[in-house]
């Protein structure tokens, strides 16, 4: 029977190999072949959410600056610092390559940290103006900013977790095998540094 198979026409000669592939490939999927792309897509989705929240914060700022300017016009320096920091933060372009490039990632992180500190200075300054603090618009903006800061923190934590899973998959068995053979272009992703994680927006007391 083996001799028969060997002398079969060329179309059927590949049949054993084809059958082997049909059996082995689904097993490969079970062996973690899909895990690296899945983890990478998860991390990218988490990253989009982080960018979304940062963008939301950037969108709230012009409104806030206008409201504060109405009551605290002398605080021009602080207001200008916020506007400048916002411009710098929105200027940093983020591409999918930013995730794999430590330099670009650091630049993005620094620009957002700059905006955070400028905002906290502005909110601290606005404490000195009771009229401003009682203004309904300001209260609404302030609660929106606090909510956005919280959402940024949650999105960052989700991203860090997703990147941890992806980087771990690249380094542990069997991911390390797939990474060195079929997924050579998969590189570890950057993650946020711990120092920024513990930074909290200032609590504003009434």
């Amino acid at each position, binding site marked *: 029977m083996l001799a028969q198979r060997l002398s079969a026409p060329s179309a059927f000669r590949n049949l054993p190999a084809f059958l082997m592939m049909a059996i082995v490939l689904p097993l490969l999927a079970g062996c973690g072949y899909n895990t690296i792309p899945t983890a990478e897509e998860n991390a990218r989705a988490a990253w989009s959410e982080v960018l979304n929240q940062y963008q939301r914060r950037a969108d709230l700022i012009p409104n806030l600056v206008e409201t504060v300017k109405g009551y605290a016009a002398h605080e021009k320096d602080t207001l200008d610092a916020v506007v400048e920091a916002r411009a710098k933060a929105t200027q940093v372009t983020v591409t999918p390559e930013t995730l794999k490039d430590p330099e670009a990632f650091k630049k993005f992180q620094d620009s957002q940290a700059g905006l955070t500190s400028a905002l906290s200075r502005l909110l601290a300054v606005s404490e000195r103006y009771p009229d401003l603090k009682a203004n309904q618009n300001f*209260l609404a903006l302030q*609660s929106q900013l606090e*909510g956005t800061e919280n*959402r940024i*923190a*949650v*999105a960052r934590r989700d991203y860090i977790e997703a990147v941890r899973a992806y980087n771990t998959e690249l380094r542990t068995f069997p991911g390390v095998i797939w990474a060195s053979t079929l997924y050579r272009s998969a590189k570890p992703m950057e993650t946020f540094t711990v120092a920024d994680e513990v930074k909290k927006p200032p609590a504003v007391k009434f």
Partner: protein
Amino acid sequence: MRGLGSIERPKPLTPPLSQPKSDISDFGQFKVPNSGKPEFGWEREPTESVARPAANSPSLPSRRRSGVCLALVVVLTFFLALSAAALTFPTLSGRVVDEANILDAGTRTALTEKLAGLEAKTTDQLVVVTLKSLQGTSIEDFGYQLGRYWRVGQKGKNNGALLIVVPGERRVRIEVGYGLEATLTDAVSRLIIENAIIPRFRANDFPGGVTRGVDDIISVLTGDAEEWKQRAAKRPDTVSQSPSTQSDSIWSVIVLMLIVVGVVVLCAMLLGALCLQILSILALAGGRGSSSSGGFSGGGGSFGGGGASGRW
């Protein structure tokens, strides 16, 4: 390793020297040669009673035992670390989880009714929870993790909300799920907290504060008649007598039963009687623990950190 030599070791297991040669004793490299003489240093002569390591080679029992000890230590430390890092959340016993015991039974019943009515109307799940402590984290940090752990809100729509009160730390938070962030915005949550809840908490009226807060949240969520009509229309069953949660749970029970039957059949085919024994033990243990109270459970929703907090 040298120090372990002073520990008195128990008598090791009888090596398969005395057993007749059969399939069971044929362990490959541990196969005893015909002469009956032990091949490895750890195999004892049947006459030896006191165990002593050979002078040059480290005896395997000590290495194996220290390996087991090390493994046990690592495993226990892992579980210890895990329990230390993770927060412990109260069980979702109903729509009002009063861990800090600040609400009386009448308030709890009234609130549960209102919250059940909200879910029946709009499928939004609002849960009131009072906590004894925040276990060292901030209420924002605790809030979204609790929401995700309980999976409050419908899966896909993420329309869950939590009203969290921590009287011991004097903090309150309205945690809003992804899907409700457009209606129950941060600003609105802040207004509810500042105007309805905190003044009453300052006067030590916890039931009043929580009730008023819940009323306000419900009025915000059901405020736009057009909008909640649209949301209600998206529900699969529009029968008013049996709420959709009941038919959902019946379906999930049926699916679960089919899965269990399938697993049992597969297992029986592959492993035989032993597997059935194991499964029956598991079923007995699991059946007793799976009783649901009141039929309320999270719908699979997630949270993203929206909402507002306040302190008094």
